């Protein structure tokens, strides 16, 4: 009935689920390291900082209605320059994918499957995700919609379950912070909000293009909300000192929940299971996007056959770092710089150039 159209609700779901990836695991701890109990301020600010770029992306989609970023970009900055842009985007997507899947593998390895080689975990995840990476944006947004509601319900359940063991006094002092720390805090957090650049492609397919801006913003707000809740819960549960020492506090926290009267113990397995869905929701759109970029580079109509070869490339990149520390330092930095390009630099350039062109024409 609807040819290649997605709804606004699905757009919002895409943004939220693509954003919440591996960042949510380490976010409370990394921000607590910098800003202690006042880390929530950085979380909120970081989220708000993405809004201008979301706005730019929406405006660009409005100007070139019905066409995806990788298509109309050629017109704006010229073929050759845009091809370079495309290559950078491709690299960004691939390295980001490798980063996410590597961390994913490490977490699964640590908590669930100690003896299974990490290559197997990474490969199976990549293959399972490539299935949806090869479909069209319609299926991906439907999946995002489904996963969003599953995540929402599990978050609510998990909050309710942890209420008995919470110690809200651990949140204090909540307002004590150093202004100098804020930039560093925001830059740490900003990276967790990355993932929504999928809308560069998705916006072209939305049915009701008038309200996309509202729903995009809503998507970011809900992401902020989820991160805040995670931060508060982990902080209340662990206290500031322990929180700083944990690498993945969001998972450890599931262990803390114990209601023996209700037969609820060791819930970390279930948390892990739903987290697999979250990572999948981040990786799927990324694979799709890399396929689309390649298909635009080579001028093909469909992007399917690019995805499987990309799986091998991503796997190789994912296995390059030798240890988790290396992943979090080197790879993290590379992805960060690429992300700055992909989210901030490229869309802004296109936006400004398009505006100038419009003005010239008038």
């Amino acid at each position: 009935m609807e040819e290649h159209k997605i709804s606004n609700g699905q757009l919002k779901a895409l943004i939220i689920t693509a954003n919440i990836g591996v960042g949510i695991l380490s976010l409370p701890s990394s921000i607590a390291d910098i800003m202690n109990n006042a880390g929530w301020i950085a979380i909120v600010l970081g989220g708000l900082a993405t809004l201008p770029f979301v706005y730019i992306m929406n405006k660009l989609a409005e100007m070139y209605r019905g066409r995806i970023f990788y298509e109309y970009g050629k017109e704006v900055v010229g073929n050759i320059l845009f091809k370079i842009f495309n290559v950078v985007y491709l690299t960004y997507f691939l390295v980001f994918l490798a980063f996410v899947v590597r961390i994913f593998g490490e977490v699964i390895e640590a908590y669930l499957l100690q003896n299974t080689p990490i290559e197997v975990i990474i490969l199976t995840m990549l293959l399972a995700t490539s299935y949806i990476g090869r479909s069209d944006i319609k299926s991906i947004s439907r999946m995002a919609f489904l996963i969003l509601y599953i995540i929402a319900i599990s978050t609510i359940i998990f909050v309710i379950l942890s209420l008995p063991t919470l110690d809200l006094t651990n949140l204090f002092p909540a307002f004590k912070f150093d202004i100098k720390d804020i930039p560093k805090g925001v830059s740490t957090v900003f990276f967790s909000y990355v993932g929504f650049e999928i809308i560069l492609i998705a916006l072209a397919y939305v049915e009701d293009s008038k309200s996309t801006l509202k729903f995009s913003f809503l998507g970011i707000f809900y992401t902020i909300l989820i991160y805040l809740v995670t931060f508060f819960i982990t902080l209340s549960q662990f206290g500031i000192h322990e929180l700083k020492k944990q690498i993945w506090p969001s998972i450890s926290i599931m262990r803390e929940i114990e209601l023996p009267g209700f037969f609820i113990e060791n819930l970390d397995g279930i948390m892990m299971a739903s987290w697999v869905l979250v990572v999948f929701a981040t990786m799927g759109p990324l694979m799709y996007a890399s396929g689309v970029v390649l298909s635009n580079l080579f001028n093909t109509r469909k992007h399917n056959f690019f995805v499987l070869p990309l799986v091998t490339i991503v796997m190789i990149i994912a296995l390059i770092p030798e240890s988790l520390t290396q992943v979090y330092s080197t790879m993290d930095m590379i992805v960060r710089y690429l992300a700055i390009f992909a989210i901030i630099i490229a869309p802004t350039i296109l936006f400004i150039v398009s505006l100038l062109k419009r003005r010239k024409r008038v």
Partner: protein
Amino acid sequence: MEKGDPVHKKLDKNMKKIKDIFKNCDDVVYRQFKVGINQEFSLAIIYVDGLVNSDAISDFALRPLLETARKVEPTPLTIRDNLYSLITEGNISISEVKEAETINEVVDAVLVGETALLIDGYEKVAILSTRGWEKRGIDEPETETVIRGPRDGFTETLRTNTVLIRRRIKDPRLKVKMVEIGERSKTDVAVLYIEDIVNEKLLSEVKERLERIKIDAIIESSVLEELIEDNCISPFPQMENTERPDSVAASLLEGRVALIVDNTPFVLVLPATLGTFMQSSEDYYTRWAIASVARIIRYIAGFVAVLAPGLYIATTAFNPELLPTGLAFYVASTRINVPFPAVVEAFAMELTIEFLREAGTRISGPIGTTIGIVGGLIIGQAAVEAGIVSPLMIIVVALTTVASFTLPSYEFAAGLRFYRFIIMILAAILGIYGVMLGLIVMGTHLVKLNSFGIPFTSPFSGLGFKTGDLKDVLVRVPVSKSKHRPDFTFPKDKKRIK
């Protein structure tokens, strides 16, 4: 001489041609007779024994011709020119009379159960509608019973089936469009829809797909289903099939299209979504609160049916930390002397259940129940007592099977069964992570599936979610609250109650 040839004036020539075509069809009956005061006009009737209502022929066709025609004294002129119309319009008492001008048409008509009346000297053949054959009486459908609700079910005769629908929707806007499909079977298929509700695009899509079919025979509606569905490789059905007229009538009122296929009581209803597969007519005949609870239980059962054996394997063989301590110890204690690893146990039990299921479908009646007892009690119980299988495994497998039977649609449960095996295999290799992978793959597959362009996972995945389709899918709100038709069919007229 070809079949498509026109009817000849001479009766003998026509008879010879027809007899030639029907060579070795000994069930075709030829009756030649003469009418007229002086018996000067030769007529012949041809029909297939068993397909026709013999009384109709003898009472309403032969008798008027043989008796009354004798009594009347037509003038020679009128007779010569107009015998044909005189007979067809004046004498024959059968309600439906058509004309045929080619041998082809005559043959086809005879094969459908109509009687051909050939008149010597005329190039037209009268086709009398005399259909009547042995058919099953209207009975309660065996596969879909309800506690409260109508007990009539479709039969193998198309006309009976359309009647059952007509009786429920006495609206001239309910359209019944006949189509013939199949080169040799020439199966009649009726397309039913309500004109001012159904979406135009859906209707034209259905018609187009029906026209595209090239096949020699449609034996059952499932063959038709396979030929027109979006994705025939998927283990999940994309159209509902039902034996219940009330279900079809309700679906038509939602803006869906029904396909009645001759020779089978199973009627196809499309489009179908995950939500509709979980609905059963019984929900609407019981009180809403109970019905809502029942629906939610169905969803839980669906999950159990897919996940239970996989979870069993994952928790016993890989990650016992997922279980609460007491349960983990208990499970360990039940498995102490079992010689097989959990994986083998699970697969063996699933295989056994599949054997039982197959055996049960082959044999029905008293032997079938025996199989159930033999399987359940003897094999299961004995296995546990012999210590080959742990009792928890039996419970898991039994629960899974029962859970899959709570789903209203047998085919849909079969699709879930397929994924259950995949998840079990993945669980056997990668534990709970494997289970999640299996769910992801299944989820992706479901999400990609379309039913005539409608996303299969509506209303859970966007379409109709915000506009309240869930009211009728996840729970069942009282009739007074469901004023609008569901969204997924894109109906033209959204209001049910004005």
